[in-house]
């Protein structure tokens, strides 16, 4: 499984060295690399099923500082690596129409993917941080070069938010490393170091917020909608699909895993909040409801999806804060589910629809009768929208249900508030679906004429393949969630037993 990392970086290097003008070659090469990575991830996932933590690589990296190149995989890692593999292939498929500096696009793309694989497989805090930072820089270039609406602004905002977040993580890393005696940066060793409770009390929020910025936690989410909208389709798929998961994964693995006492009650309560856990849970719930409400009011199709990501990532963070088995299972499953569904939504909006209509304004799309003219897009969006609303049979349902059950055990009010978010979620998805595809306006004769004259390009095979890949993933997981849960549950159990409560 470690080869997913090396393969991605090798892919990035080869793409960077490709001569200009060989766009077709660059594309097929990218598909081959991403496909191979997916196969590696899949075989790793299947062969790892039922096993606990498996060490993939362990070498002394900087012996004098006790830093190890330690790659390992547990159930959570395997699920997220699989998600990254799927998202990478889908991203390549939906980038088939990139004509500008194609090889550079895929070079940055695979540098990002390699960093993401690395984060999910690192069990050394330092190594995790290194890969995390490697993933930040290519995002900037992907958005700034190949993006659309206000790309310079969106890209810079994203880069600075990420970098501020990682600066917070770095402070936490340095403080934990030196406080534990500067012997090792392995996650296991840092967790066992027994840092004093008062130190964990400030390290936990520092590291948690540092990672949660990238997970789109309210009120640090504002990079997400602008970044998603500015990004080219593949980049916004990756951004919503896997990069936001980097943040949530970091919250879980580093924030909660290393500083469990940071979640302890403060001993006093302020505005009804008695611990950091309450604070972040409330922020997560606000994110769920706020993201959904703002999505309801958007006029740009892509902003709707962008804010829906904030809302769905709120479920992940809420699941983390439940601190019980079912809630954490739900959080990890929601990471996978949202990764696939958000990827699908962004692909339909940014690639299939926008590349043909050249507008994302819902008001303009309303006049185009897309259900009739782009039936494939319409039905794909129906499936993705239903999955996103969390209807049974799709992965989102089981994930959000678990989070809500877990939240109920922790604090019923959280469930009630998050339930409001789900209802609003149905509303904005429905609104977008209706406005963009199923308008009831009757076409005039003039409109019909111009439709005849300017027909939309037919759906290409990469688009179909990408939609199929993502759609099948969400349905399979929705119908048979045990596939993933069998891996997630033991890992979460081990994490909880590792002293989180």
């Amino acid at each position, binding site marked *: 499984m470690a080869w997913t990392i090396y393969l991605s970086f090798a892919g990035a290097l080869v793409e*960077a060295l490709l001569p200009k003008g060989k766009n077709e070659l660059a594309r097929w090469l990218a598909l081959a690399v991403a496909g191979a990575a997916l196969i590696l991830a899949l075989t790793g996932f299947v062969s790892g099923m039922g096993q606990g933590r498996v060490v993939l690589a362990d070498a002394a*990296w*900087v*012996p*004098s*500082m006790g830093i190890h190149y330690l790659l390992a995989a547990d159930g959570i890692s395997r699920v997220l690596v699989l998600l990254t593999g799927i998202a990478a292939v889908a991203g390549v498929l939906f980038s088939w129409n990139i004509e500008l500096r194609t090889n*550079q696009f895929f070079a940055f793309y695979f540098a990002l993917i390699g960093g993401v694989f690395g984060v999910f497989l690192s069990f050394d805090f*330092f190594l995790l*941080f*290194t890969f995390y*930072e*490697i993933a*930040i*820089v290519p995002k*900037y*270039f992907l958005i*700034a*070069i190949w993006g659309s609406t206000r790309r*310079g602004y969106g*890209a*810079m905002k994203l*880069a*600075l938010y990420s*970098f*501020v977040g*990682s*600066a917070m993580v*770095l*402070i936490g890393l*340095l*403080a934990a*490393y*030196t406080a534990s005696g*500067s012997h090792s940066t392995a996650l296991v060793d840092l967790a066992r170091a027994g840092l004093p409770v008062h130190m964990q009390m400030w390290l936990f929020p520092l590291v948690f917020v540092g990672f949660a910025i990238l997970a789109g936690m309210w009120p640090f989410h504002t990079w997400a909608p602008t970044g998603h909208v500015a990004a080219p389709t593949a980049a916004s798929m990756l951004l919503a699909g896997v990069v936001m998961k980097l943040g949530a994964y970091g919250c879980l693995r580093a924030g909660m895993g290393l500083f469990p006492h940071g979640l302890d009650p403060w001993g006093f309560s302020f505005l009804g909040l008695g611990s950091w856990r309450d604070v972040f849970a409330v922020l997560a719930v606000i994110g769920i409801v706020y993201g959904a409400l703002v999505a309801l009011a958007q006029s740009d199709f892509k902003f709707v999806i962008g804010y829906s990501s904030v809302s769905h990532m709120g479920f992940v963070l809420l699941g983390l804060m439940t601190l019980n088995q079912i809630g954490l299972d739900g959080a990890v499953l929601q990471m996978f589910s949202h990764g696939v569904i958000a990827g699908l939504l962004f692909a339909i909006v940014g690639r299939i629809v926008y590349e043909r209509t050249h507008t994302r304004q819902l008001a303009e799309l309303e006049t185009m009768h897309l259900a009739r003219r782009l039936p494939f897009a319409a039905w794909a969006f129906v499936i993705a929208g239903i999955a996103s609303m969390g209807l049974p049979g799709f992965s989102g349902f089981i994930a959000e249900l678990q989070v809500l059950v877990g939240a109920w055990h922790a604090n019923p009010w959280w469930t009630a508030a998050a339930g409001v978010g789900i209802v609003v979620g149905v509303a904005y998805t429905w609104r977008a679906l209706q406005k963009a595809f199923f308008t009831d306006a009757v076409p005039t004769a003039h409109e019909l004429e111009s439709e005849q004259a300017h027909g939309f390009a037919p759906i290409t095979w990469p688009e179909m393949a990408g939609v199929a890949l993502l759609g099948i993933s969400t349905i399979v997981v929705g119908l048979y969630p045990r596939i993933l849960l069998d891996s997630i549950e033991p890992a979460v159990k081990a994490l909880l037993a590792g002293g989180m409560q």
Partner: protein
Amino acid sequence: MNYADLFRVTLPETVLEVAAIVVLVADLVFLRKAVLRARVAAASLLGIAGCAVAWWAVGCAGAQGFSAGQGWGAGSDLLLAAGGTAGVAQVGILVLTALTLLLLIDADFTRHAGEYVAVVLMAAAGGMLIAAAQDLLVIFIGLELLSLGLYILTAFAKKSGKSAEAAMKYYLFGGMSAAFLLFGFSYLYGLSGSTSLPRVVYGTYMASAHGGTMLLYVALVMIAAGLGFKVAAVPFHLWAPDTYEGAPAPAAAFIASVSKVASFALLISISSVALHFFGELHFTYVKAYVTARIVSEPVHITPGIPTAWPLILMVLAVTSMVLGNLAALAQSSVRRLLAYSAVAHAGYILLGLAFFSWSSASAHAILYYILTYGLTTVGAFGVVAVVERATGSDRMDAFLGLQKRNPLLAAVTLVLFLSLAGIPPLVGFWAKFNLFAAVLGVGAGSVSLWLVALAIAMSAISLYYYLQVLKRAYVMPATDETPIQAHPVTLVVLLAIAAAVLVMGCFPALLQNWIASF
């Protein structure tokens, strides 16, 4: 005192001076009629050969320093140290000097190649001297040797008004700061009755215990002004932007790298002497005093250099980090941007000096930082020089569309600037991590933690201005798409530097082990 010892210890400097004379003779006698290109190449190669021989001589110098007179024991009255941190810094100075000489091959700002190389070699000898100096007078002589060379190098582009202006400003500021430094040294001598660093620390400690503290503070502030000028710490940094902008590129690279390495090596030896003089006097029980800091804990605070010096360094560090980074945000010239970023980097290193460890961890971390920073800066100036020759400007907009005009150069820029910003897996990140870990390892308390947090926050800000350059190189469309040609030697050197930055970043233990092996 043994003059054979003196010859052994100063052999590297002697080699450099001999090489300088050889270069002059070769250029002015034998190559008088040759074309300029050949003369430049010959002078550079001779200079590089001199650096290589001097490197070998550093190895020969051994670990025994040179002492004058016979003091209380080994190590006292040391004039020049050898080996250890001094050795590392000296090798670093030689390597960086050789690299700046390689960048000269492509330059056309002067017809006096021989003189240029000779001055570079002499200045490098001054740098090596202060890296090893353990005595106030040797320090001053070394600093002057280095500084005078730098003034000349800055003014070397005779046809450029900017170069003359920069040199004049640099000279005036430099002369002033040298005066401050000497004034401070004279107070130290007056307080302690000695010019040898360990004795100065001991003597001032005794003197301040008897009421001489104010005088000591005045002296230390004067010295901080003098040395702060050398490392471009705020508020003594004003010369840096003008000099970096006006000096010919190879000279600017030399000032930004070699001079920095030498000055920080000097600061390292001052800081470690300030911590270790008790050890040398076999006062083992006073370690507690030495580690007492200006933290508000109820610790008995001893007067003297060990407490006052870190405080001054800390103030310089904070102002440099904050002002350097914020001023860099507003620059539109890449050279000025590099100057302010140099101020910011000096701030991070001063933080490492302010929290200097009893063990060698801090010294090694600072050396690691300054050597890799010097290497990266030489590369950055190399890129600026190539772009400047092609476009006639060092504005950020000169970098527009660089990825199309010269993809290799753009890739080098990407690696170097991201390394300066401290992005892993490049070496700049390791240097920062190393340094901050050393700071936190020493300062058990919230002050060091807050300062490290400030430093990390500031380096997050720095990403913004480094990205401004990369944005023009990679993102924004080119206004002019003619390819930029770089001299093959220059290109190879730049690629080698970028590769080194990447490899040392992926395998940080290589350089760490090398530094520790001295």
